[in-house]
């Protein structure tokens, strides 16, 4: 379970989060959406222990991420927005490092690691250094690193970024299965079609505050929109996309 209570965060004078209350139950895939700078990344960074909240509380699997960080992290799997990896390591070595940081027994972790890499299509590349990996391959390594300790809670920031269509399908199916097993999943993405398909519930935030919440269809209906895409644009106050495209073209022609 994931819960935030009156969660706020300030970067100097700029407020990124204003008392956010969020609840994700076991078995649920919650899509956290918002325009750039809405506070999604700040929320994720607080939940994963990368930064501390200015005020309020965040709980992962029932543990306060500030007061009981190690207990929370033991149950958390995280896929960051950018798959930063130690690129001199091989995929196997990187997962070995992550397993060791989770205090997994090497004898248990090794077959699980090899199986995960095999299933994600990295079996042959597992002894290659990560600097030779494509973006999608790195993304798969990060996914494997998030899953290797069988976490109760998964926080995924653009997990399908860089993946080919087949791999993306595998991951989407995997997420649904993990949720069906009772795991809690927080899913952040800008690709609304994916969010619509994967998530059972959506929260849209803007300027650090929630502005809509509900099932994808309900959010679209509540704004009188045909699609989630359209509803998102209306809720976040963005001008018509075609109109902006036309303005850009005109600006290029002028200069």
């Amino acid at each position, binding site marked *: 379970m994931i819960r935030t209570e009156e969660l706020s965060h300030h970067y100097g004078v700029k407020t990124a989060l204003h008392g956010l209350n969020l609840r994700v139950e076991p078995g649920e895939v919650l899509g956290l959406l918002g325009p750039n700078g809405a506070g999604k990344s700040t929320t994720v960074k607080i939940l994963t222990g990368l930064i501390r909240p200015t005020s309020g509380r965040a709980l992962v699997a029932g543990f306060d991420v500030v007061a009981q960080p190690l207990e929370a992290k033991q149950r958390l799997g995280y896929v960051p927005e950018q798959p930063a990896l130690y690129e001199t*390591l091989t995929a196997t070595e990187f997962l070995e490092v992550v397993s060791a940081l989770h205090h997994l027994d090497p004898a248990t972790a090794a077959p699980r690691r090899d199986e995960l890499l095999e299933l994600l299509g990295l079996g042959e590349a597992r002894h290659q250094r990560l600097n030779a990996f494509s973006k999608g391959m790195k993304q798969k390594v990060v996914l494997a690193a998030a899953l290797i300790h069988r976490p109760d809670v998964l926080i995924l920031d653009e997990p399908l970024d860089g993946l080919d269509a087949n791999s993306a399908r595998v991951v989407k199916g995997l997420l649904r299965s993990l949720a069906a097993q009772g795991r809690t999943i927080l899913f952040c993405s800008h690709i609304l079609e994916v969010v619509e398909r994967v998530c059972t519930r959506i929260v849209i935030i803007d300027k650090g505050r929630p502005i809509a919440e509900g099932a994808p269809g309900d959010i679209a209906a509540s704004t009188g929109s045909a699609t989630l895409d359209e509803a998102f644009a209306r809720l976040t106050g963005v001008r018509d996309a075609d109109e902006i495209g036309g303005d850009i073209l005109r600006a290029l022609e002028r200069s």
Partner: protein
Amino acid sequence: MTGLFTFLGVDYGQWKAVSKTAVRADFRVPLTQSGESYSLRTVRGLLMTALVHGAIGLAGAFIVFFNRDAVLTGTIVLMYLTFVLGTAVLMQHGATMLSAVDYLILGPRPVSSRTFLAIRLTNILFHALLLTTFMALPPILAFTLAHGVSLARGVAAAAAIYSWATALTLVLAASYGGLLRFAGVARIERVLAYMQLVVGLLMYGGLMLASRTLGREALTEATMPAEPWPWLIPPAWYAGYIGIATGQASGAAWARAALSLAVIGALVALLRGRLGMDYFMRVGELSAAAQPVAPARSSGGWMFRGGEARAVALLVFAHFRHDLRVRMGVLGILPLLLFYIVLGRDNPEADPFVAGPAGRPDVIALAVLLFPALLTQQFASSESYKASWIYTVTPADRAQLVIALKNIAIAYFLLPFLLLVAAIYAWHSPHLSHALAHTAILGMVSHLALQGAVLLNPQLPFARPTEKMSSSAVLLAWMMFVIIGGQALIWLLPRTVYVSWLKVAAAAGGLVALTWVLNRLIAWRVRATPN
């Protein structure tokens, strides 16, 4: 200006734009999770660099005031500069020549190979000349003011210092560029290891040879050695400018000065010629080189089998094997250690339990004290530092990570070095027990010194961006501190501790207790520090 660039085959506009950006980027160190501001880190790095190098420069200025032979003192100042610049380039800036980082940005643009090389060289020269400036100011002032005011002598000293700094940097840069061309991409990692050792040995060995040639008499009365010795000491060629400015130069000194300029010209021609023509392509090959498949065996060593220590061991080994910057940094230290050992063997105390005359430091002991801290410095930063998010999102104990890094440096690097040191002491000492006890005490003190450094500045492994401005300054500052503190300790040991075995045992017990306390303090400090 543009004419010179055209002659060199360099696009002036591109060179200017990218070089400015590169220097700006070096000063804007990426933010770590501590959220410390750019400007604070930059100012702190610059201040540290200026202070440390200024202190070395002051030592040079001191010599200028106490000896009237301007060419000799100029040569000594240039030898100090060789040590400072050589260490910085070997351990830090040399990797810039082989780095493929900005190739990904410039590769797809219409930038010529010579322009690319000129941009790289400019960056290395900028940092080298900045260090030189911090170090050079006191000696230049001393040459201007000592033994009667002479502006010409000051100007000639500045010319000598900057010309030698340029020549030395170009030699080292051309060595790395040549390595890329002649070793080929497939063999570069292996060949680089040998080259780093050879260049280090040549540099420190040359310095040792020169210091022996010059240092036979008391410093105040020493004079420049007679011909043909100055021909063997390149810094003396450049220091000859000072003699020329004061009208005291012989024909040979004029010839050496001409040779010094010819060397710079030849280096520029070399870099403009073959090295420059295909440098871009070679770096490109390096960035796109097919990575060999690693063996399936575990590579974290057998000593650290689980948890944080296992994770850190894997990271250290992988970085040492495959990260050019880390590998070059570590291999750059080895010739320095060898230099200390050879110096120490030249002046061995027969028995470490017997007090030698004052002013004759046990140089081997200094090497033992220096080694671990120099080493762990190399393991704190990485080009992939952003991957340190894994420490934060996993239940890893950060204190254990910091302590594991220290322990790995001790277990895999200091202990084998101590075995070598014990063998050297045993060879010279009539008592094996004395040699072993002395080595053990030194090892414990060295460990304690490393713990002190870790306590003052605890660092997660490979979690810090590479900072060009401050890291070599930190190294030099640490070396100066250890040399001063270490000499005092080495003087004290035979006089206070080695007088009885009971005292040796008590000292060892005290050191073990202190080690335990410091480990606790490190853990407490790391856990008390927010992410």
